[in-house]
């Protein structure tokens, strides 16, 4: 067991043009765990993720990823962004997109190697997209595109996986399959999933990072209707579920 935490966020505050988005955020995520970041819209979930990726810098406090500054650790992170603003006219195939995940694992020059292609195809296989590898990315449905973007994140063989709303465009069956897959992967790597659907994710994850400007961390077992109500400041519908690991 490594003593280094996957994520260590110490007293972090962040504001956009003076408007505070996060205040005094303080939590750690151990390695090889499955964590969900939940909270209301505009509560700061994506901001927190971008801080953890080093795409934004905290106004106060420090963040360490695997004991390093985020910008240094970022190539070890597989990331799938939310609401991707991608040009759907762009001439790329599914495999081309997955291969982008291999950048940063290779010499920064010349074509992709056989190992890169194998890695990208393996990532597509995990998401059952390998048969569509030669298809134009723009010809896919929204759900298929999302899976390709998850495969792109996986293709880098990361030590951590950050997914921002990975189930926004997929149906319930795919969502369940995806979380089974992520649960399996969390035995070897750290998986962090941003979700607005607390009820569903809580049957898979070990703890929930609740973000609404401030951050509270709850082991999944203690997430009750009251906690959720406090977080969202309004009644929410709690999905009843059984814990797989009791």
């Amino acid at each position: 067991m490594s003593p280094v935490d996957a994520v260590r966020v110490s007293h972090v505050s962040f504001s956009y043009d003076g408007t505070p988005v996060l205040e005094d955020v303080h939590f750690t995520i151990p390695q090889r765990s499955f964590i969900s970041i939940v909270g209301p819209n505009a509560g700061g979930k994506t901001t927190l993720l971008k801080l953890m990726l080093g795409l934004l810098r905290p106004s106060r406090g420090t963040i360490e990823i695997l004991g390093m500054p985020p910008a240094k650790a970022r190539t070890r992170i597989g990331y799938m962004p939310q609401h991707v603003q991608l040009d759907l006219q762009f001439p790329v195939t599914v495999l081309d997109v997955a291969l982008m995940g291999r950048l940063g694992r290779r010499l920064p020059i010349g074509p992709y190697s056989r190992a890169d292609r194998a890695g990208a195809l393996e990532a597509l296989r995990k998401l059952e997209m390998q048969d569509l590898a030669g298809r134009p990315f723009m010809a896919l449905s929204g759900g298929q595109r999302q899976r390709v973007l998850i495969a792109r994140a996986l293709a880098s063989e990361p030590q951590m996986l950050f997914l921002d709303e990975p189930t926004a465009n997929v149906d319930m069956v795919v969502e369940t399959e995806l979380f089974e897959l992520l649960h399996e992967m969390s035995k070897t790597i750290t998986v962090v999933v941003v979700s607005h659907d607390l009820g569903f994710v809580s049957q898979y994850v070990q703890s929930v990072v609740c973000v609404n400007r401030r951050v509270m961390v709850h082991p999944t077992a203690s997430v009750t209707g009251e906690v959720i109500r406090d977080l969202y400041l309004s009644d929410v519908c709690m999905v009843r579920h059984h814990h797989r690991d009791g």
Partner: protein
Amino acid sequence: MGEFLTDLPRYPFLQHALLVGALAGVACGIIGSYVVTKKISTIAGSISHTVLGGLGAARYCQVVHGWDWFHPLYGAVLAALIAALVIGLVGMKARQREDTVIGALWAVGMAAGILFISRTPGYSEDLMSYLFGSILMVSAGDLWLIAGLDLFVVVVAALFYNQFLAVCFDEEFARLRGVRVEGFYLLLLCMTALTVVLLVTVVGIIMVIAIITLPAAVAGEFTKRLWHMMLLSALLTVAFTTAGLALSYGPDLPAGATIIAVAGTVYLASVVGVRLFRLKR
């Protein structure tokens, strides 16, 4: 057309013109595909117009200050690279100003060129011919510079194809994979600048924006991967310049304008054709 074919083996200037068209076509296919997919055609247009400033300044220095080595094409390369870097840096540091700077450089570059030319004693008609292209006036010396620029663009584009693709497709993700996004974007703009200079000799400053986008846009209708698009676009550009030269030669039409007319016609036909074909099915 027949006249073109009989004169081609006899006149080196025609052979040079064909060769320049082919060389510029290769770079144009590659860079044009990036320009179209990354949607930076106005940047290419702006860089193109600053070239007149560079041409004029170099000629002024040659004639007035006696800097004989400062060939107008060096001035063009310098001005294009400076414009590319300025637009690139402004776009990265202050995105909301980018559009303004593109427009400002477009006009100011042009104005500087006109002023320098007006202050240069002697005959400067040849510089004005860069506005509309001067492919038939390319000398053997120009040919070497053009070949060198072409080689540079092709080699860099081939070596860093994957990085450029990732930067154009999804900048944020590329950054997270450790790609130096800013550096590659600036490099791409500089390569665009060099390609623009190549194309200025072929079709002229004013029509560069068309030759850099039209073949790539046609290729985009028929291809699904970026490098396929580049390949087809390069072939099309070479075909357009050759056809334009051949068609313009007999009736003594301006070559640059004829090339653009050919490219525009093919583009229109392909866009309409593809849509009609889809409707029919």
